[in-house]
């Protein structure tokens, strides 16, 4: 809590912000992974149109990437509103209490899982969507 001369955080953020910061981005990724895997395995065996599979995957990717992006931006805004400096050297090393820790984590999870969702999502552009592994 605001040691080392930095702003003391007095007001506790609501649980909703905590949920967004800690869980929403990883959950978005898990949903993306599960949905993508299901779409590919279920639809490919039913001989669904391959480009339709790719389009669905991209749509799912965009939606969940947006959620992850929201987590990062929302946590960033909250973090700044708490008076925590934008300097990562300070934001990530000093003790700004549970709210500060949570928002810092929200910013980074938003970015990390956004990267992962995008990495998963671009897969259909590089490999034949419904080909089977090992020939």
């Amino acid at each position, binding site marked *: 809590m605001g040691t080392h001369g930095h702003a003391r955080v007095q007001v506790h953020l609501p649980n909703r912000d905590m949920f967004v910061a800690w869980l929403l981005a990883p959950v978005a990724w898990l949903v993306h992974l599960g949905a993508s895997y299901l779409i590919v395995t279920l639809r490919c065996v039913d001989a669904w149109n391959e480009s339709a599979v790719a389009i669905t995957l991209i749509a799912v990717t965009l939606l969940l990437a947006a959620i992850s992006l929201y987590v990062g931006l929302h946590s960033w805004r909250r973090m700044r509103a708490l008076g925590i400096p934008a300097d990562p050297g300070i934001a990530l090393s000093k003790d700004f209490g549970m709210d500060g820790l949570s928002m810092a984590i929200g910013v980074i999870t938003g970015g990390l899982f956004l990267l992962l969702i995008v990495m*998963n999502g671009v897969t259909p552009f590089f490999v034949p969507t419904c080909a089977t592994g090992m020939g």
Partner: protein
Amino acid sequence: MVGVQTLEAETPEERSRAFDDLWNQPTGRWKFFQQVNNIPIAQRYMGTAFAMFLVGGVLALLIRAQLIVPENKLVGAEAFNQLFTMHGTTMMFLFVIPFLEAIGTYFLPLLLGTRDLPFPRLTAFAYWTYAFGVVYIYSSFLFGVAPDGGWFAYPPLTLKEYSPGLNIDFWDIGLSVAEIAALGAAAEIIVAVLRMRVPGMGLSRLPIFAWSMLVFAVMIIFAFTPLIVGTAFLELDRKGVTFFFDPEHGGKPLLWQHIFWVFGHPEVYIMFIPAAGIATHIVQTFSRRSIVSYPLIVLSILAIAFLSFGLWVHHMFSTGLPTTALGFFAAASLVIAIPNGVQFFSWLATIWTGKPVWSTPMLFTIGFLIIFLLGGLTGVMVGVVPFDWQVHDSYFVVAHFHYVLIGGVLFPLFAGMYYWLPKMTGRMLSERLGKIQFWLMFVFFNVAFFPMHITGLHGMPRRVYTYEADLGWNGLNLISSIGAFGFALGVVLGLVNFFWSLRYGKQAGPNPWNGDSLEWSHSSPPPNAQFKYIPEVRGRHPMWDQDSLEPTDPRFAKLVEPLQSAPTTWRGALVVSVREGAPTGIVHVAGPTAWPFLEAVAFLILFAGLLIERMLLIIPGVILAIVALIGWFWPKSSEANALAEIDMEGSEDRLPLFVYGRRSNGWWGTCVFVAIWSTAFFTSVASYFYLGEGPSGYWPPSVPNLIFGLLATAAALASIPTVHMFARTVPNGSPSMRRTGLALTALLHIILLGFAVLSLTTSDVRMETAYGSSVAFLIGFQCVTAAILLAMLAGSFAWTWFKPADPRGWGFACNTSLVGYYAAANWLITFVVISITPLLW
């Protein structure tokens, strides 16, 4: 005020002695079986788990002795199968996880500043169940039927047709026993870390080891539970009851691989995360500075935990899955290197910017960094699908995971032993022997395992008991075997050091390493009566930053004052708010008893009966289990003392006693149980859909009887208001209304069960198909859920009948209501899954 009458009559010395005596119980002849305190139980846990490490190590040496030269005849193929199966099983299930839980059991209360774990009887039960699980699995050697299907037990090899002996049954059932122990310990850890901390220790000041144990425990719940379901499927298949994995009946062997690796991959990180937590403490202490970027370390732990649940398919790259799906899991496999890298750089930066002291714990930590880095790099390599196809099931993979597991887990564990053993024994280990041990282990580890990369690239497959002389593998195998024996020498030296230190080691004193966390505030070894005086923390490093641990915040000081060296007639502990660590209440902590031991004995008898299919054992096992459970939860006089001394309301300057509802530990424990149970249910539902999917799927020619299903659903829906009826009578409602609600709920769930069973038996669903198996399993799951609920309803009813105004009964009713809501939801989902979705497909 706590024990006002008692306290006024006592001097502070008398009170202090009474407090110590209370926490030092039991003292009688049977104390070994009645002990529940975290420290003695953790010591047994560690002793047993370390013994299993030595046994697993001996098995590894036998494997390496067999492979030292080509065409060796030391052991035959069958014995070799048993050796590698039991080596893997022992190290993964019987050593690392229990050992980590033991460390958590011992050190979490010390790190968190609390007096014990929230459910000490569960601590004892977890230990005894684990110990009996060990006896169970290893007794297979006595009968000459040691498990031989690999630690992964893939069907169809492990189905009855190809493994007709009891070998796999020993593995299957014995493992379930050990997993139950792990789940019990996990529940303890979660509730302890979230609620039982020192004032001022908000989550943002939690020691990193506590963070890692919290995440470890949550991961155990979501990873071990699917494995228990999987082993139940496998055992039922082996008994000929179901056909989940039998392709001739519509089953899919690949279902096992999915279930196993949904457990198996997080398992790697379940082991790694606490080990890394230990490493963080050591880096911090021996670099003489706080860890660089606490938030990033916490983030890394969480990110690794999440990502680890999305990687399981990278163990199945060669099973013919669609390439796009492989791409998803390859991406996750590569990205997990990011949070690992963040932790890695944080450790390096801490050392770089600190003033490192190169003591033995630090050396083992550096060894960990180097070896784990190499294991991580080969992990990235096998995360690349085409490369994995080339090296799959070769010695390259053996090298990779030993670098990860020995580097990432064993080295930090040895570091932790050198770091924390002085706290446990009160004696310092020899630095000189420790450093020799480190260098022996570090050098010979690389001698043993580095050549295996090359052996694998040269094409040597895993799990072969011998090889021909002209394949070019001779020299590499010889070097690996020499390395293994050298490594074992290092472990033996560590043992010598341990026993030497007990007799000749220097006195450690409370804080021999100048550590920063609260365990170092206690004497070495710490007493059973920990934190007689409740401290307060005001930062992340109380031993570095604070001159005194005494509460200075007047709010905290006033609230915890009644707990200083008290209570003396019952075990009491402080509860704090989850986020900020502000004192919120007091809980009763259960005292010594032999019931958890007897419950574990009951499990042993029951599971032995299931192994050999003898009702002569199963029935006494069930009866003893029920009796022991009743004894376990029988009203305790110490609880009555607590209720007599502290009121449940509290006030601005007085903490309340938490007995029932959301504020009690029992409610939190029940929530964890519901999480475990719903994970098991989710696994069963996912298996149902998986079996139905694809060209070889069985999508049902017939479904359970819809009319009976609807009637069961009506009963489930009707039970929701009746659960609500008895739940809302707590605390001040009418006891007769509570009884009515309880009775109606029981009646409705019995009706529900009847209709659910009828919906299956009156339909055309054929039991000898995988489809029939999965439907029957889901209905059977509902039956077990209902049985648990009925037992809880009976307990609540007894409380309401005999002691309607007793708050302990209210607590029982609140916890029962959670299970009641869950049981109804369980059926509603089951009905939709087995009766509605086939119509929509």
